[in-house]
């Protein structure tokens, strides 16, 4: 089944743009079918029932029914491989 991945940052226009692209490429390289939705962290609630994963560059203050992965590695290049593995693992569940 196609996974729904949320990519969020505070404004929904800066860091999430970079992360969004990184995940799109990752899914393509690993033949993963995913619907990637880029949004503000404040918009996550609207997807709570339908998303499979949240990848974000901001702090999440509440618990979600899906895994939440910190995406700072895509911005700094530190720990990128670990983050990719984490995301792939979550998408293959």
């Amino acid at each position, binding site marked *: 089944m196609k996974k729904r991945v949320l990519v969020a940052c505070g404004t929904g226009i800066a860091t999430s743009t970079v992360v969004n692209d990184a995940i799109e490429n990752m899914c393509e390289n690993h033949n993963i079918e995913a619907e990637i939705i880029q949004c503000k962290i404040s918009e996550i609630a609207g997807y709570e029932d339908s998303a499979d994963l949240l990848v974000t560059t901001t702090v999440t203050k509440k618990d979600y029914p899906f895994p939440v992965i910190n995406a*700072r590695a895509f911005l700094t290049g530190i720990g990128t491989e670990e983050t990719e593995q984490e995301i792939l693992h979550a998408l293959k569940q």
Partner: protein
Amino acid sequence: MSDLYIDETLILNDLHAADADEALRTMALNLYDHGLVKESYIQAVINREQEFATGLPTKGPAVAIPHTNKEHVHQKTLSIGVLATPVPFGIMGEESETVPVELVFMLAMDDEHSQLSMLQQLMAIFQDEQQLSFFKNTNDKTKQKEALIDALSLSRQGGETR
């Protein structure tokens, strides 16, 4: 959508600031003085930094990428602040951890999807220790501006770039 404006007047070397707020205020005020952002940008960028920290530890000097919503922006632009002494910024995505930031890349962005390559190239600078050290230590606005334009793969045509 407009072109990214880069100018030497937006590179602030030896920026003295006691804390993140002061650094942001000085840089944002400079953008406002140059007519690139609305007055509301100044407080908006400070508030947003408090809510969503943008400090990023790197392999070289730590950076921060403060920014805010596009309604506060007149002209898409990028300002660099080289702090005289490192100032603690919250780390992006962390609850309360901070990082001593030496380089601030303040973004004023006006469009949601036009800036991917600019942002990616900016992130490439953050992943390049030598480039970060160059921006930190050069103290020559013309060289810093040229390096920034090169790094962002912009053509060199005065301040306006395409």
